[in-house]
């Protein structure tokens, strides 16, 4: 079975193949965020296109579960060999010729649609001569059509459509042996563990920076449901001031979500605390 391919760039993990992105979302509940321009409507920010940038926690989970394969970083251009260049040129030529044929077929079809009108025109003309049989008329029309068909030009070379490939079609080998993302500190580890735990419970998770947390937790696909929780990861034994609690609970009330303070216990189990602002007055 083919694994999903992830390309590394520094400490960023990106998915380039459309089918991989769709599989990640539909099958593995991994949402990520699109960061490229949308090819057909590039100059807007409402909906972006490939590549899909993964959260570090998402990448860590995919690597750990052996769902994906991390491809080697492309940081320098690789010299193409002559064969590759030759193949590329042949491929382009071939595409042009095929497009040319298709374009001609299209013109033919359009011409064929005009046949009744040509027939009518010639019939009207023939009435003036008045002594032409219907067979002869048919013949004349066929001849006229043939002449027109001959006049269909080749598709100009400059009018051919070219594709700039989004995903790389070469350099897909040489998978890097990566067992996990680089973990920098205890808090980083906590985030990865918390993400994994919530993901395994069936939630969808996205980046939570919009709401001042680490993750947003959705009960289903984020396209359809509101998130219920804002997760804030804390180091075990972290010191939190009462003012911090107050800040969190105020935040939760404002965004109408539940704050989950989550941390790892010494035995690496994930624990959650939610804050509830008791409005006694």
């Amino acid at each position: 079975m083919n694994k999903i391919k992830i390309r590394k760039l520094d400490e960023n993990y990106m998915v380039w193949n459309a089918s991989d992105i769709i599989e990640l979302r539909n099958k593995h509940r991994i949402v990520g965020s699109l960061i490229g321009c949308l090819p057909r409507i590039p100059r807007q920010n409402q909906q972006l296109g490939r590549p899909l940038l993964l959260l570090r926690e998402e990448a860590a989970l995919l690597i750990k579960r052996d769902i994906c394969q991390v491809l080697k970083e492309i940081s320098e251009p690789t010299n193409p060999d002559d064969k590759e260049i030759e193949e590329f040129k042949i491929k382009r030529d071939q595409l042009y010729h095929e497009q040319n044929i298709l374009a001609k077929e299209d013109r033919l079809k359009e011409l064929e649609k005009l046949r009744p009108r040509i027939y009518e025109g010639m019939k009207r003309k023939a009435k003036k001569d008045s002594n032409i049989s219907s067979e002869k008329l048919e013949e004349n029309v066929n001849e006229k059509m043939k002449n027109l068909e001959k006049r269909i030009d080749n598709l100009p070379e400059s009018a051919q459509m070219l594709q700039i490939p989004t995903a790389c079609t070469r350099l897909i080998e040489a998978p890097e042996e990566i067992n996990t993302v680089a973990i920098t500190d205890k808090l980083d580890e906590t985030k990865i563990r918390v993400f994994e735990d919530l993901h395994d419970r069936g939630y969808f998770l996205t980046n939570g920076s919009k709401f001042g947390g680490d993750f947003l937790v959705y009960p289903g696909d984020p396209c359809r449901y509101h998130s219920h929780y804002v997760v804030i990861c804390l180091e075990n034994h972290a010191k939190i001031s009462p003012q911090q609690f107050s800040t969190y609970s105020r935040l939760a009330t404002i965004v109408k979500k539940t704050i989950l303070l989550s941390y790892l216990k010494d035995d690496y189990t994930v624990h959650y605390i939610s804050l509830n602002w008791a409005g006694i007055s």
Partner: protein
Amino acid sequence: MESANCSRENKSLLNAEELSTYRIAAEKSLLQRGGVKDYCPVKGNLEQESKINEFRRKYIELIKQERVDKKDSLGRAEWLDDKKLAKQTKDVGKYLKYFGHNKDKEIYFLPEEILFLVDIGAYELYYKDMLLSLEECFGILLSTEKLSLQKYQVYAYLIRFGFIVRRYQSSDQVQAKRQSNSSKRDANNDESETIKKKQRVDEMENNDMCSESVASTSMNVKYCNWDYSKIDFPDFSKQSVISLPEVDSKYLPGRINMQKREYCFPNGLNSAKYITDVPGCKIIKNTASNWKEFKEVNNCDILEKLQASGCGCLWRGEVQPLLNPAETNTQASILKSIKANGPSRSLDENFTENELILDYDVYSPDGNFRKSAPGRPDLRLIVVKQNDQVPHINNIELLNRKFKANVPVYFAIVSSGDISFVSLITQSLPDLC
């Protein structure tokens, strides 16, 4: 779902039919963002399911979009790995207004510029006769110095909104460029009106820069330490005739002729009317039991005096003098109310950290932008990652000093796919009493 596995096999290159029908089969609508959502999934709810399926269908279509264009309208560039620049080999015109720079009659693009042009499907980038995919472009171009994925995200985000984004240029760089430009212009000797206009803007900016340097030098004002008790001031108040010693003509401007050296005051200097009539300047005779009362009475007196004197009209209109003599009666309060010594903070003595590096100049899209004379940007950007250290307060202070009242500096905080902009301003709060 089994189709996902099969179709993963390299379906990213389109065939001839897909290419030629590209324009016809256009999915031009976007996914709906926000709107009414459901609280949580309900098993067996057909409406929810159909909506999700509809979303997924559209999502797949959007994700699968490829960059395709007519050969005619595609630009072409060649990546020069030693220079870390892309050289244009085929021009399509319209992009050069905001992208690229001229050098030796060739047009070169910076890595982020060419990356964006490939991203929007406007240019093909080649390396040694081989077309690079967007994936390769991301890898190669974002691994160059001074660039990162986060910086490109911010760069592309702003351009997609229509802003014009250029790499940050310090005033020295701008100056050097302007000089070389102006020498060129002299040679050509055809100055258009717009160039002049731009120049004027540039000069204005120049002045700003000057004022910046003035501001920084005037920071260490030296107070004179004269001991006034030891300086003898003559007392003329009792005398009716004052004679002044002759002033050496070399201290006077040429046209002034110091002839008269005696002034007569029949009733003594004290009676000179103009002295006591200066508004707000008055000897206080009121009595009060405490300081508060004293100040109130005093202020009232001064205000009354003000109203009565000819100057009263100054405080009647909407536009009033900056200073109110009733409230500002010490040197410190005057300086404070005219904000002479601003809210700047003094820097730590042993401050060694590097200065914050500005990343981009951003111009709003008003149509007057010219690459050769970009003028003053509308804002400047520093791109930071979510997990970066918060910049040192001294750095922010230095930044505020450098660009005082000139161009706002924004921090673009990139957290995965989200970008938020923050500006840090040292505040001077208005005094309410």
